[in-house]
């Protein structure tokens, strides 16, 4: 074996041993740096994805117009197209008013952020948002929408943050059930499928489908009290406690905009 290869091999062994000895804190710093490297790629990719999405929307509109061409007069077609355009603008307007209204009504200090990507990790539920430490975000800040709790920030780089979704098994939230004194721990499953499990309830609790579940806001916890988590789908008693299955209030699959709770007003 050549001298250079032996040197490279020894260097590799030393590097591996060094990396494997890193503690969790060091690894988290490394991850922040890694997110910084990924940030421009994720932002460009997201911009391209949005562009393609808009293109396909335009194509769909053209298809629809072409289908209508056989059935209606030219004047009628022009007016319909104009109406469609106005309706889209109205929807955008309504959506933005709703988002803005929620931000102003909320009792929290909210920082709006855009979802850049839904991570491909199979056993973890995380997303990346386009705000980071330069915007005042730190790890363990709650992330919400106008519908309810989304999750919490974990790793934060300068202009990109990772959010662990409430549907992740590791995102545990103290929760209370509307109209009862029942409290429990809410978390996702190992195989994130979009449902939440509310455990450590009284096994005699009389929970009904449709009852709302909110964050309990325990002292020293991350999540403030009163944020919607979801609604009860079913309840069953186990050996020692009761468990309810919840439909999450904020569906992570269609998320585009979220708010990071940076403090209270």
């Amino acid at each position: 074996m050549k001298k250079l290869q032996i040197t490279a091999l020894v260097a590799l062994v030393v590097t591996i041993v060094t990396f494997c000895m890193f503690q969790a804190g060091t690894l988290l710093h490394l991850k922040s740096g890694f997110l910084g490297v990924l940030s421009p790629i994720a932002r460009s990719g997201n911009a391209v994805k949005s562009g393609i999405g808009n293109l396909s929307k335009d194509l769909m509109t053209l298809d629809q117009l072409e289908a209508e061409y056989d059935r209606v007069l030219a004047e009628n077609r022009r007016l319909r197209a104009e109406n469609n355009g106005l309706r889209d603008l109205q929807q955008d307007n309504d959506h933005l008013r709703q988002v803005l209204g929620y931000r102003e009504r909320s009792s929290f200090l909210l920082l709006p952020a855009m979802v850049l990507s839904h991570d491909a990790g199979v056993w973890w539920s995380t997303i990346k948002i386009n705000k980071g430490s330069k915007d005042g975000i730190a790890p363990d800040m709650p992330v919400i929408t106008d519908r309810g709790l989304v999750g919490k920030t974990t790793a934060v780089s300068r202009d990109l943050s990772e959010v662990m979704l409430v549907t992740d098994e590791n995102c545990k939230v103290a929760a209370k059930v509307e109209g009862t004194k029942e409290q429990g721990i809410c978390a996702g499953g190992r195989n994130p499928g979009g449902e939440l499990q509310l455990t450590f309830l009284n096994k005699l609790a009389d929970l009904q489908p449709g009852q709302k579940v909110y964050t309990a806001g325990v002292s020293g916890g991350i999540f403030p009290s009163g944020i919607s988590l979801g609604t009860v789908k079913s309840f069953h008693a186990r050996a020692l406690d009761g468990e309810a299955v919840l439909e999450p209030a904020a569906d992570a699959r269609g998320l585009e905009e979220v708010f990071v709770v940076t403090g209270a007003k």
Partner: protein
Amino acid sequence: MRRSLLFLVLLFLLTVSVAFQNLLPGIPPSQERLQLLPVVFAFGVMALPLVPALWFAFLTAVVQGLALLQVQAGDAEMGLTLPVVFFLGWAIVLQMASEMTRGMRWELHALGSSLVTLTLLGGEFLVLCAKRGGVPWDLSVSLRIAVPAAAALLIAPLLYLLLRSLVPLVRGAEALPKQTGFGR
């Protein structure tokens, strides 16, 4: 110089694949996610000579380890040690397979990509089960592992076609099997 070029191209692809796989939509019906990193990894370790391949495997492990890093109560759930062992192990196996066939072949790359994906996802699940307790194995878990592995089998030839012109520059044409058609 040429080896360094391929190494840098592969490193770039590795980083891009991590970002790009996050932007891809899920595969219906259960929205399983495509895994591009194992496909790039399998190509890299088969195309590069042994020592650079081991370095590439190490860097893949660092990228994958950091991408999945979650710290719970001051403890890293999946640190870097397990990914490093996993990817170095697969690098050695794929290098040996590549040597046995006297060079890289597209079939081998596709099979390697699929097996790496299968064992990566299966291994992650087992590590999580060991750390968190319980083995909640059901059909959806099987699908979450099997579908990306099957997808890797289909994606791998595309990457091979894209990069195969770079491979003879590195390993030397004399080391490659004499073959026409899709394989080299």
